[in-house]
């Protein structure tokens, strides 16, 4: 049960129950869909930039606790950041979620560190990375993305 509790930490459960920024954005400047063809999870990410700065970041869709919490945490972490900072953060979080060797920096990663429980559950890593893939596609101006890519 220990690994399960590490996966479903309080922060994850809380974001799953009450996801932040869980809505579409009518005046978005970019958006993208992320889907996980293996399981059918679908998340849509909406983005509004003002110059180089991410003014608003929201999401909606269907997903498991992990994908929903991850998306919710992402919107909190990246709202107000510049596009360059967002790219860097996406790279770092992806690495953090996929690679056993890298330890989260609590000061810097904050609640996102809670997502690293997925590393013990290889089948669920795609759930955690889905929203981040979708945001990456939105920033690049690509309409949709899939975790199979």
């Amino acid at each position, binding site marked *: *049960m220990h*690994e*399960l509790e590490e*996966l*479903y930490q309080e922060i994850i*459960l809380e974001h799953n*129950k009450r996801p932040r920024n869980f809505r579409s954005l009518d005046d978005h400047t970019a958006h993208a869909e992320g889907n996980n063809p*293996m*399981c*059918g*999870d*679908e998340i849509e990410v909406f983005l509004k930039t003002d110059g180089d700065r991410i003014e608003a970041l929201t999401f909606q869709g*269907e*997903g*498991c*606790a*992990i994908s*929903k919490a991850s998306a919710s945490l992402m919107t909190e972490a990246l709202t107000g950041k510049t596009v360059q900072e967002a790219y860097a953060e996406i790279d770092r979080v992806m690495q953090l979620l996929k690679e056993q060797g890298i330890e989260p920096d609590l000061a810097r990663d904050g609640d996102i560190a809670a997502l690293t429980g997925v590393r013990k*559950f290889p*089948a*669920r890593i795609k*759930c955690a990375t889905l929203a981040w893939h979708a945001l990456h596609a939105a920033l690049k101006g690509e309409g949709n993305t899939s975790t199979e890519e």
Partner: protein
Amino acid sequence: MGIETASQQVQQWRGAFPLLNQLVNGQPLVYLDNAATTQKPQVVIDRLQRYYAHDNANIHRGVHALSQRATEDYEAAREVVARFLGGVESRQCVFVRGATEAVNLVAQCYLRPKLGEGDVILLTGMEHHANIVPWQLVAEERGARIEVLPVTPEGELDLEALPRMLRDLPVKLMAFVHTSNSLGTINPSAEIIALCREAGVPVLLDAAQAAPHQRLDVPALDPDFLVFSGHKTYGPTGIGVLYAKWQHLSQMPPYQGGGDMILKVSFEQTRFKEPPERFEAGTPHIAGAIGLATALEYFMELDQEALLAHEAAMRQRAEAGLGEIEGLRIIGQAPRKASVVSFVVDDVHPHDIGTFLDQDGIAIRAGHHCTQPLMKHLGLPGTARASFAFYNTMEEVDALVRGVQRIVKFFR
């Protein structure tokens, strides 16, 4: 049969499947993903081992003893399949990779040449992707279209709509599932086939989920085509069967070209063998066919009545136990169901259920079960699905129910 003897009977069945006897995540494995693939009895594993250790040779070509032995065993396997299908002719049984390949073969070799602009291929709302996509490929190419017989909220086919669709639409073929992999619904296939017969519409019956539970009486059902997969029927992966009426099979062009399907080859012209060889280009999955035959023989020797009664009892116990959990909904309430229980729980996503149960050593399937259109129709992102085989036990059903109870508590 009394409870005591019934459980002894199950233990005896179970003992034939070595894989079941292991720990997963420190817990005794509870394998409830049988609709995805079934486990293999020791006799099948032994038969594959014996084939590769003693009998391996290429078929239909060698004059030597081993080749003759392999050829005889491969053709004997076809006879077993014909017997499993209720006594059809073995030449009507083509070995393919699985149900998916069988559907593709019929779509490409039977339907494609007959299909014209505006024609209709009739499917149902509960089809597996394997019985949707192959038809879409030929429909798109020929300017034909797919029409769908609707599914009721209970998870049954809306049979009232069928006669009208068959009458009003230019249907060139109907393809539908005998037993639904997502809902467990057992469709009234004989009735549907009879309606199609009246309307002069040929039928393909997807029996992938039906074959593991009962012998198929193909002469009584009378479909034009029937497909099933070996690996879902206690046999090896990579082998399956296409059954077809001879009047169709004998007229169909080859699926793939290659060795073993030809009578005479020159660069100007090639003459093909008669079916079934015409559709088995190249060296087939000889071991797979022989292993499948062993699996079917094993299965046919079981007490079919006891087996079905045990499967039904497990499903009812699971539905009763799970049904008591607050916020849990069983998806698929058809009166006739195979031993499949699909369910959703308020505020708990199926994947999270799957991950939790896996930590208890319980294997279920979570997701859309390769039936995305059905899930969309039901307004669900997916379900959690427990599917039982005759080698599962009542104790395992109880472990599932306890596991789900615990998850619900955790997430609320």
